[in-house]
């Protein structure tokens, strides 16, 4: 029973947090079996038995026994790293002295909620990153919806930064968020169900079908754009979640179109959809230009390099795809 052997024998211990086994109180080398008579050696320690993994026995303190348990080991390591991430996020996302306390408490709670999550979820769903996109308030949502329907008068499309990371959507109307796209998607599915219902073509499984097909189209779009960004070898700070957020904004216009179509027939549908298509086209161009094009072009100076032209075409293509998809996904709902 020596430290190297014990460390090698615990495959589940994360590499960044190796608690030196020597601190935990080595088992008595003369003892062939772990002493399970005391209440302190519990969980995995008791089950290892004589395999000599160096877990503390009767001599260890309760805290050391707790830490030796690999599950709580991992949980503590996970919790600490999440706390560090949460604190970073807090440090970077707060602008102005007045909001510091809000940010502090938010960071503490992020740490607490991070500990409450089972460790496996964070591998699949980056919860801390997602929380940034849901840090919205009613005022932001109102302004953003106004921007989506009428982006023509808005001057400054640049996202404010604070120490190299963007400010939370609460504080800057240009920042992308995931609340509006998520709600818009769900509302679109429900409104589609309503539209089918008024045409007597409704059945509950049709709702599921609508939802899956819309989700499939969204996934396809995201993958296509990611592929083209990769092929054009553009270095942008456009993350995948940002892209999903931007592509989700068109559902707002689609909902408007369908509702108008339900109330006023085909004329209303075409009018509202046409307006929303124009708006989303302008919105996407102005937003993506800042993200995809190089810094020079973003400042308004047209640059003639071949690379920048390619990026411009890509931006135009993405923006033009939005109205097309808006029409494709809604025309069969309005008769």
């Amino acid at each position, binding site marked *: 029973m020596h430290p190297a052997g014990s460390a090698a024998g615990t495959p589940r211990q994360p590499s960044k947090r190796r608690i030196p086994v020597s601190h935990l109180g080595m088992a008595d080398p003369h003892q062939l079996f772990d002493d399970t008579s005391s209440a302190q050696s519990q969980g995995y320690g008791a089950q290892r038995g004589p395999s000599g993994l160096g877990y503390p026995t009767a001599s260890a303190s309760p805290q050391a026994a707790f830490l030796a348990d690999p599950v709580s080991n991992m949980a503590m390591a996970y919790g600490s790293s999440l706390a560090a991430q949460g604190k970073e996020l807090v440090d970077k996302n707060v602008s102005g002295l007045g909001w510091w306390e809000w940010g502090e*408490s938010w960071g503490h709670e992020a740490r607490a909620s991070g500990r409450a999550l089972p460790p496996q979820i964070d591998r699949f769903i980056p919860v801390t990153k997602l929380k940034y996109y849901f840090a919205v308030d*009613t005022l932001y949502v109102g302004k953003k919806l106004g921007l989506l329907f009428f982006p023509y008068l808005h001057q400054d499309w640049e996202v404010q930064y604070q120490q190299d990371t963007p400010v939370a959507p609460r504080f800057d109307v240009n920042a992308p968020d995931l609340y509006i796209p998520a709600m818009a998607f769900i509302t679109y599915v429900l409104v589609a169900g309503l539209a089918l219902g008024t045409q007597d073509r409704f059945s509950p499984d049709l709702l599921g079908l609508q939802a899956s097909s819309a989700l499939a189209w969204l996934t396809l779009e995201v993958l296509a754009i990611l592929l083209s960004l990769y092929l054009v070898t553009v270095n942008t700070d456009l993350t995948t979640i940002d892209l999903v957020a931007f592509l989700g904004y068109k559902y707002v216009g689609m909902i408007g179109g369908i509702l108008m179509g339900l109330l006023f027939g085909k004329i209303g549908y075409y009018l509202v959809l046409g307006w929303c298509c124009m708006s989303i086209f302008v919105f996407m161009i102005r937003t993506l230009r800042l993200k995809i094009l190089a810094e020079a072009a973003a400042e308004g100076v047209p640059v003639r390099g071949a690379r920048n032209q390619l990026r411009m075409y890509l931006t135009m293509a993405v923006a033009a795809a939005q109205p097309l998809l808006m029409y494709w996904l809604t025309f069969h709902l309005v008769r």
Partner: protein
Amino acid sequence: MFVWGESEGELGINFDHIWQKTLTVLNPLKPADGSIMNETDLAGPILFCVALGATLLLAGKVQFGYIYGMSGIGCLGIYALLNLMSSSGVSYGCVASVLGYCLLPMVILSGSAVFFSLQGMIGTVLALVIIVWCSLSASKIFISALDMEGQQLLVAYPCALLYGLFALLTVF
């Protein structure tokens, strides 16, 4: 009174709290106390769900499967959303409890469906009012329990979608 209090304690059901929470739901304009959601109790919500099913049955619609399915998925969605939006996390039981309590006005709607059909203009208006009532109460309780500022309408909207589905079940 002595015996009643004893059995109440033994069953673990706090009738006084249930009554308090019911009153909070019935008056959506009065600000809620943040501490009432400290214990998650599902006794009230289950009672209201059964009452909703019973009144729907009286009106001739046997749709228990849809009720359970929709409420399960809806609760899950709102649980995910609230965890992402609030700074402190929330447990699934708490979400289910609040949503269940705020189902009470929907029971009133389906109760009235027994007496007159809701498919006209009056029915639509009544259904809209009830949906707004339910979602305002639910968002009010969530906001005060989770200490979220400036987000009441944002929380009310998904709740309104969920209660809208219930209303659809009741009306059609």
